[in-house]
């Protein structure tokens, strides 16, 4: 009699659920994840308090004698974006970028190390042996990175509010509404998907080389970084949110497909 083996078909939903379970379990047990969130929380508090303390301090160039007056923040929301009236954190354009938007670059550290860890430990080997579908891996990593990025933005926002309160800064929105602020944060969260997709692609290509992944991600992310402030201003509306959502979806599908091809065509060990 012919012996045979029956294979129980496992549906996509079940496979992705187990993959996400593993990734989120790992993420929530990882020290790196909590360090990154702690940095996201503490950074705006320190920045706001220190820059408020330095407000009005004068530094003199010993050679030219030119004086530079340090301008501290006046409003808590300068940590989130530029207020109507053009004031940004520190009164300098460069500090206009040193706000919540830094989280878009910071998330590449998490994505890079998270994916590199899979390949370094040999876990990717276990994973891809029992999982023929590479797309599940890409989806799961993108979602894990997205959740981490979204949490970083939320933690930074909380830190900014706490920093503003500690430094005694104004919470006046200057004509903007709380709805605009919510839309701004929502738009930023959805825009995070674009960045995470780019970082996931670069990290998958770099495999176990975390340094290459992080350097590549910083370089690749920088191309889009300049536009974050424009796409998600403090006065964001529903249009900004929808644009970021659509962009995030398109980027994650498109770059996810490329990531899948890379995984399919290259060695996992």
């Amino acid at each position: 009699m012919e012996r045979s083996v029956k294979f129980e078909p496992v549906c996509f939903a079940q496979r992705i659920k187990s993959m996400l379970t593993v990734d989120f379990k790992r993420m929530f047990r990882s020290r790196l994840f909590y360090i990154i969130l702690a940095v996201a929380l503490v950074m705006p508090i320190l920045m706001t308090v220190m820059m408020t303390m330095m407000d009005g301090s004068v530094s003199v160039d010993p050679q030219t004698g030119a004086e530079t007056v340090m301008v501290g923040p006046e409003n808590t929301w300068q940590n989130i974006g530029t207020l109507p009236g053009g004031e940004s954190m520190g009164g300098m354009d460069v500090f206009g970028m040193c706000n919540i938007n830094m989280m878009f670059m910071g998330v590449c550290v998490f994505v890079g190390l998270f994916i590199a860890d899979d390949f370094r430990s040999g876990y990717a080997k276990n994973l891809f042996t029992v999982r023929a579908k590479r797309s599940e891996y890409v989806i799961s990593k993108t979602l894990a990175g997205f959740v981490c990025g979204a949490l970083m933005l939320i933690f930074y926002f909380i830190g900014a509010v706490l920093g503003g309160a500690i430094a005694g800064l104004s919470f006046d929105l200057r004509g903007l509404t709380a709805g605009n602020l919510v839309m701004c944060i929502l738009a930023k969260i959805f825009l995070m998907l674009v960045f995470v997709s780019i970082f996931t692609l670069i990290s998958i290509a770099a495999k176990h080389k975390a340094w290459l992944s992080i350097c590549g991600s910083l370089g690749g992310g920088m191309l889009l970084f300049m536009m974050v402030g424009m796409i998600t201003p403090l006065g964001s509306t529903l249009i900004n949110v929808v644009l970021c959502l659509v962009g995030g979806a398109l980027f994650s599908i498109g770059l996810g497909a490329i990531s899948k091809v890379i995984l399919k065509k290259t060695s996992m060990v």
Partner: protein
Amino acid sequence: MNAVEIKNLSKNFGAKQAVCGLNMTVPMGAVYGFIGENGSGKSTTEKMICGLIPKSGGSIKLYGKDHTDADVRAKLGVLIESPGCFPGLTVWDNMMLQAANLSIPNAEKEVIHVLKTVRMEGAAGNRYKNCSLGMKQRVGIAMALLGDPVLLVLDEPLNGLDADGMRIMREVFADIVKDGTRSIIVSSHLLGELQKVATHYGIIRHGKMIVEMTADELDASCRTYVALQSEEMGRTKSLLSCRYSRVEADEAGYIRVYDLTTPEEIVSYLYGNGVCVTEIRTDRIGLEEYYIDLMNGGKREWKDR
């Protein structure tokens, strides 16, 4: 239906051809000893079976389905090179992660079961990075056993195992294949150990399968010989060479007579010529010798004897 059917498999790394036109058949219920020198293409073939590296050509079928089929792949157990564990996590956490990855219901029960199988239940709380080489190997085997796999692919699973570990492995292998549907591909350089468990063999060289045979066929090929020592080895050898056609001195200091004869006949012949035999026994050619001879070009014609 065979557990594994590979036809004309090839893999190129740039200009280097690691596997070329390899054919391999692993029947269901077999413990397939996959043997070859370092760099012969064993691990590359195993990695291609598991879908870890893309093949350059040929076909791989697992239980009649293409090796990329998600349902078949979900029933594979693998230990290639090293167990894929996170060093900072405990053995238990690593096992539970893989159990979650395999969507195993009652994961805790299953993890305890496989850890008990490899006698690692007492070390479940140890961080993986603090485990010894042998313990890591056992964890890797336990991980491969998770999810009741139908095909186990084990690359050098016996490395670093102590005598007890080897015995456990033999028991595990026997238990897995006893129902006749599940199969194991195991590559190892410990040929003596492999011979104790393998039911089939495949010998690969320069990326090509040079011999595939069952354990019975190997047994039939590896005939007996008489090994002896005397007080005058030089004279003994020349005397035996006059009477027998296949006489050789081995590395252990014995003279081997491969012709069909008995120790009594040899002792009587040598005694008649004034040579006193100090030790004599009959023995069999093992897998190791068969393999070494094959690698050296197969000068001996084992099957003729």
